[in-house]
């Protein structure tokens, strides 16, 4: 290893593109929490999908064994990533595809635009892809005079509404049927003005709108859910058939994929195709999964390009505590069970990746000091629901805490004067690192009664603690702490089985 290390970049290579919270999470959340419609839509949608997931997961007697296999397989992929990537490249190339490597968002965008121009195309159809969302491909192509049409229903809703996705699986989860009907009426050329807000009617309007595009567009862009190293096979998991349309009908297919999406062998799909649909849409299996290997004569696109994207993934990989965030298969189960996401929605996280996984993935890929990404690891009560739901057992709460530690260290290195939090934590360190100190603090606590009203409640505190009292009282402190009571008043139960001096020892001050 040391020999290879000589030519190493010394600084972690962080990602660019749509990976940043541009305002701090509490500020963004404050705004979104005020949107009653948004909260109602999110509460309904996440509640529905949570129930579906629990039901189909409970059907499998070997769910935990599948999760464990998925977790270890992904660890194996990360540990063996250079070899597996090269193997994938060899297999894709051998079967008629072309592999490109992109260090960051800009490089990936340039590669894709160049490939489209080489085909002489000015428009492309797209199947929903987190990677292209992350690199801001649509915006880049627009600057280059290339129109990119999103074909997934929710992505179409977001694109027509000049909006941003708020969920990685159901990007328009923040919109209800009436809002979607209004977007279609305003933005969809040739739509029936009598369109109602019935989901079936809305879906049929999207079908009619996209049909011509599917049948005539020469270039398609996709992401990939999995790439099989030992065969060079790519997989796209979907529901509507827009994926099959894009992957089958155009002459040229360009797939943009993060380098972490690998699986070692074709048979490993037996684990991930059991985990993914149940975790994401709460189905036993999604309606359509397409698998293709390079180019097949007479079947599907005859030009295939695979763009392998780093964009901060290697920076995440370098973080020993955080690297398992790269195991993520983008199922979105963590956001569906997250009480924070449920109330704020995805926009508050800023990045393409919202929810618990986004709160760790974004800062890992960009560095904790980038923009407001250091506010993301705090966007969690650490309730642990995400870890339980994760099909590949990413310990999200543990990584959140790890990143909070990195943030505190980074802030300390930058700051000359301690923050209010620093002062509080330093005081608490002193109080909490000896029984004597805590006893002294506790002696002063009854003074808190002075702050309490006649009803023995403290209703308003200054500074950071004011966050607490904005919605919560604090009871007036007791007259006497437990330790004071124990020392002065506790009379141990006589117990003949114990040695007589045990009680004395137990009350002794250390």
């Amino acid at each position: 290893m040391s020999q290879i290390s000589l030519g190493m970049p010394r600084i972690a290579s962080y990602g660019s593109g749509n990976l940043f919270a541009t305002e701090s999470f509490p500020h963004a959340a404050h705004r979104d929490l005020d949107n009653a419609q948004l909260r109602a839509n999110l509460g309904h949608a996440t509640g529905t999908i949570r129930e579906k997931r629990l039901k189909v997961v409970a059907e499998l007697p070997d769910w935990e064994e599948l999760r464990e296999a998925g977790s270890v397989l992904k660890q194996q992929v990360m540990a063996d990533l250079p070899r597996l990537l090269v193997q994938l490249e060899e297999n894709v190339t051998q079967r008629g595809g072309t592999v490109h490597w992109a260090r960051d968002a800009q490089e990936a965008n340039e590669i894709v635009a160049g490939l489209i121009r080489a085909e002489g195309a000015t428009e492309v159809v797209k199947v929903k892809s987190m990677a292209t969302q992350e690199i801001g491909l649509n915006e880049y192509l627009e600057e280059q005079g290339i129109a990119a049409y999103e074909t997934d229903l929710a992505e179409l809703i977001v694109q027509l509404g000049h909006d941003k996705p708020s969920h990685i699986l159901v990007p328009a989860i923040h919109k209800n049927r009436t809002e979607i009907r209004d977007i279609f009426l305003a933005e969809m050329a040739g739509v029936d003005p009598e369109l109602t807000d019935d989901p079936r009617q809305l879906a049929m309007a999207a079908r009619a709108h996209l049909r011509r595009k599917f049948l005539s567009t020469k270039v398609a862009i996709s992401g990939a859910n999995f790439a099989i190293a030992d065969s060079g096979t790519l997989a796209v998991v979907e529901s509507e058939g827009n994926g099959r349309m894009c992957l089958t009908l155009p002459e040229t297919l360009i797939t943009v994929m993060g380098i972490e999406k690998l699986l070692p062998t074709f048979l490993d799909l037996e684990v991930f195709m059991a985990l993914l649909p149940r975790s994401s849409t709460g189905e036993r299996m999604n309606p359509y999964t397409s698998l293709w290997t390079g180019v097949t004569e007479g079947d599907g696109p005859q030009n295939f390009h695979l763009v392998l994207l780093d964009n901060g993934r290697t920076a995440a990989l370098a973080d020993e505590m955080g690297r398992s965030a790269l195991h993520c298969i983008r199922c979105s189960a963590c956001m569906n069970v997250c009480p924070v996401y449920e109330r704020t929605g995805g926009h508050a996280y800023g990045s393409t990746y919202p929810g618990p996984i986004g709160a760790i993935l974004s800062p890992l890929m960009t560095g904790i000091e980038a923009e407001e990404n250091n506010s993301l690891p705090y966007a969690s009560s650490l309730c642990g629901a995400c870890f339980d739901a994760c099909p590949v057992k990413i310990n999200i709460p543990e990584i959140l805490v790890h990143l909070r530690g990195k943030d505190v260290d980074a802030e300390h290195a930058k700051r000359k004067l301690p923050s209010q939090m620093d002062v509080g934590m330093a005081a608490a360190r002193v109080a909490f690192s000896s029984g004597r100190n805590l006893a002294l603090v506790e002696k002063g606590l009854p003074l808190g009664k002075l702050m309490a009203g006649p009803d023995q409640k403290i209703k308003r505190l200054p500074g950071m603690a004011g966050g607490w009292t904005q919605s919560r009282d604090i009871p007036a402190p007791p007259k006497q702490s437990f330790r004071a009571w124990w020392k002065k008043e506790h009379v141990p139960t006589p117990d003949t089985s114990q040695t007589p001096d045990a009680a004395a020892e137990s009350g002794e001050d250390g």
Partner: protein
Amino acid sequence: MKIALFATCIVDAMFPRTAKATVTILERLGHQVLFPATQACCGQMHINSGYFDDALPVVANHVAAFSQGDYDVAVAPSASCVASVKHQQPMIARHCGDADLENRANAVGAKTYELSQLLVDVLGITDAAAQLGSYFPHTVTYHPSCHGMRLLRLGDRQLDLLRSVGGIELRDLSGPDQCCGFGGTFAMKNADVSSAMLEDKVKSIEASGAELCVGGDASCLLHIGGGLSRKDSGTATLHFAEILASTMEAPVSVSGEVELLTGRGRS
């Protein structure tokens, strides 16, 4: 059995009655309770806030306090603090490169139990009315804490103990597995989201129609209780230890400043 009580900082300072109730229960069962006097806090607040360096002396103090003294097991009336002792303390020692502290922290963690774990798994309590004389003629609803559910996997231990209390009436809580929004400094750093979570929890507690919301973590109860109090709700919060300690002869008072008569021979 000699049982070392880890009161936890929040119970020690703010809810002494919960620790007294824990002592009462264990002494009623004939066990000897010790209180290692140098104990203070598990360090969870520092750790979860990212202040690992500040956490180290707190963790070291806890490990030292519970590494000495002759006791069989340690117990705390808090799932969250027990989870921190078991999982976070060794992590902090490792983070700070102190292998000796890590080993000792693991040893302490292995002997430390949450109260319902100790009662059910070690002491074999399945019927609180029969084995502890627990009697509590009130309607209650039970909120399982996130850390009890997901870090310690307590399952129904606390609820089963409550069900076996004489005179008690349990009411179902909707969305029991939903976090109340406490999360330590989260309640202050993300006060708006935390408050929105609390609002929903308070609504489901009130909808249960119970007089009391019972749980096993004083921090969650402080949070939920603070929300109920702000709404001038008639519903209050109570730790399950206090319900187990309550008997027909020495009932826990549930109105006004709750003071439990604890320890035999005391008033």
